[in-house]
């Protein structure tokens, strides 16, 4: 497997502010790589560096084996980009913008363009100034997805899209992966990245702090479980893999590692389980659990706040 995207020790400063501080990232050919991080972590800066829109202060960047700063035209013919903040010319129609971007890219598949227009339910005859945020996003997505690029750099591609359209996008991304294309998908929504990605890199404060296959990162994820039981069993917190147990009346909530789910369920079932909700951890939870110390917050802070009496 060759690396399609490779960043080594990349530093990017804007004036005195260091946005990327020794970033390493590798995306291998044919994978969907999730690029996760909170707002301001440096995701967009990384993508702009990969496009040669910005120049790094230190470190090396290779995309398809080329230097994005020097080989812009050759490289960009082989990649497609969807910016995080899509700005369109207000007096051009959506159709005109899609065709313009397609031609500049070196050609679009017209049949695919029309299929995508239909799939995303976009009216190409409307002037861009009348489009909503979601519709502007669709214009950029269709323009990118209709090209025959080898690499797709997508900066929060579903922001502003409704759930149905998000679903359409996921279908498209899967088709691309099946066709052997490489996708770097930046997002702050864990579920979106989970659903699509082969591998994930997590960026925080300008550094990649975790990278690996989803299963490898499972140790980072704890499921949040809330249950109403007839009688709350004692010492649930002693079960392996069960954390942050909070009891309020007949309601138990806890954060559970995958290995702890089975013993907890047995204990709860024995205690007369009445209702059960479980939800995957949010990215915020994940950061608080694993990197809270590094941000100066105590890792127990989340547990303490979760300990508020919750009667609802």
């Amino acid at each position, binding site marked *: 497997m060759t690396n399609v995207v490779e960043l080594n020790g990349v530093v990017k400063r804007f004036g005195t502010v260091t946005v990327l501080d020794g970033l390493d990232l590798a995306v291998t050919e044919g994978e969907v790589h999730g690029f996760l991080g909170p707002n301001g972590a440096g995701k967009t800066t990384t993508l702009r560096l990969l496009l040669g829109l910005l*120049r790094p202060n230190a470190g090396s960047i290779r995309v398809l084996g080329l230097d994005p700063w020097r080989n812009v035209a050759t490289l960009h013919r082989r990649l497609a980009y969807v910016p995080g903040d899509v*700005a369109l010319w207000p007096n*051009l129609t959506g*159709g*005109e913008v899609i*065709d313009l971007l397609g031609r500049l890219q070196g050609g679009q598949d017209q049949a695919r363009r029309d299929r995508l227009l239909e799939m995303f339910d976009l009216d190409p005859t409307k002037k861009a*100034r009348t489009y909503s945020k979601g519709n502007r996003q669709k214009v950029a997505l269709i323009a990118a997805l209709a090209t025959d690029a080898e690499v797709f750099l997508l900066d929060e591609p579903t922001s502003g899209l409704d759930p149905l359209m998000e679903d359409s996008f996921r279908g498209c991304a899967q088709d691309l992966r099946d066709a052997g294309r490489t996708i770097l998908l930046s997002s702050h929504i864990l579920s979106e990245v989970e659903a699509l990605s082969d591998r994930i890199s997590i960026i925080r404060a300008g550094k990649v702090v975790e990278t690996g296959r989803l299963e490898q990162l499972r140790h980072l994820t704890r499921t949040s479980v809330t249950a109403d039981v007839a009688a709350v069993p004692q010492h649930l917190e002693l079960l392996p893999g069960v954390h942050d147990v909070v009891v309020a009346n007949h309601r138990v909530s806890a954060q559970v590692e995958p290995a702890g789910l089975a013993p907890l369920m047995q204990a709860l079932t024995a205690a007369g389980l009445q209702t059960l909700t479980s939800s995957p951890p949010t990215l915020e939870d994940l950061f608080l659990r694993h990197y809270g110390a590094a941000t100066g917050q105590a890792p127990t802070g989340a547990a303490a706040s979760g300990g508020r009496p919750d009667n609802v």
Partner: protein
Amino acid sequence: MCETLAGTGALVRLGLRRDRWLLPLWILAFAMMSWSSASAGAGLFPDKASRIEAANTINAAASMVALFGRVYDPTSLGSLSMIKYTAFMTAALAVLMVFVTIRHTRADEESGQLELLSGGRLGRNAPLAAALVISFGASLVLGLLSSAALAATGLPAAGSLAFGLGWVATGMAFSAVAAVGAQLTTSARAATGLGVIVIAITYALRAVGDLAEPGPSALSWLSPIGWNQQIRAFAGDHWWVLVLPLTLCVALVPVTFVLRARRDLGGGLREERPGPARGALAGVWDLAVRLQDRVLVAWAVTVVVFGVVIGSLASGATDFLTSPNAQDLIRKLGGAQALTDAFLAAEIAIMGIGVAAYGLSAANRLRSEETTGHTEALLGTATTRTRWATSHYAAALAGVALLMLLTGLSTGAGAALSLHDGSQVGRITLASLAQVPAAWVITSVVLAVFGWAPRLTSAVWGLLALFIALGEFGVLWNAPQWLMDLSPFQHTPLLPVGSGGIVALVALTATAAALAALGYLGWRRRDLTA
């Protein structure tokens, strides 16, 4: 009413905060220019005889009357000194007020900033009211400061006040006109264009009206700029004329609010029509032309109309030949002997500066496309930085050349008709094209600044204003020669008067090329910035 105006005060403060450099600088510039002109007049026309001589010369020349108007009291120093300011600079003031008003109305609405604020406790009419407060306030300060500046040179206090109040009232009237325009169109550019067209029409109306003998005809009285002249500051001070622009202003303000109430936020009076589903734009060059074409057409129409009018006044320029003093005056105004040619050369030089302003604004697209994020989308494709920047730069250069060609052809055609001499077309067109390199230098300065200090790109407007001021007052200010030489307009040969000048034109073109190369160098090395 109170409900719909809630938050006006906060918006006024926000607007003044945003304009804390722009407005004071422009206001000061107008006051300074008034002061310069008034103090220069005292030196140029020391006694009554010289004033009467100069005033009669101006009043006898159709070209001067069309461009600046009449001197209504030949004995009055103020009336003579401020002749360029009652109509010509008043039009410039009107343009400024249109810009200020649109900036705080339609531009904010188009960019979405107003939507962000509208979530707060903000009445529907507050943004419009705040914009009018700002532009009315700017008119008031500008006018009164200019009054003070004129009085400080020793001109009569009453006349100075009448002159300044004329600017206050005219500025307010055109602010109201711009506010109406802002309700009609969905884009700030179109709204500004509408305002400028109204100014051009009112200017032309009074030009034709002023030419009527013995004095201004009804046409001048149809024009707000004509009203400003008829206040006749320093020449009788007709205070009652101030009522006209103020009435127009008071009449238009309710119209703007009614129009605002009839439309949605972000919308114009006309519903947006659907466009083509397929695009014909083949690349960045097509896009650059498409983004520029309407503005260019508007400019083309303006220069052609202006050119034909100026050209057809060429025969009247010989009316100056009444006395030695007249020749002396025209030498001061134009700088050459053959008077018809001197007149045409001076007019073509003015057009050259105007077209340089077009080149500047067209090249400024480079920066506005970058800040809106359009450049990011385009550079994400196989388009290189050089190719993209060239599309806008070359469109600006080509637009400048085209406009000067049209200026030459139309002025030449007008002159050929009025002088019954077909050979005028060729030589005037050449004279007009000689202005192109200087305008290209201005256009290229934009690219150079864009390459190295993108945030300062629009500051090139200040540089152009400095060059214009140097051309107008540099000698009177005793500006050092090196400063005068900075202005490309100083090096442009005044054709069709002189001959040669090829060396200067080649040097100017080379300067433009060097500035462009410098700009490309910076642009290829720097980060994209918002």
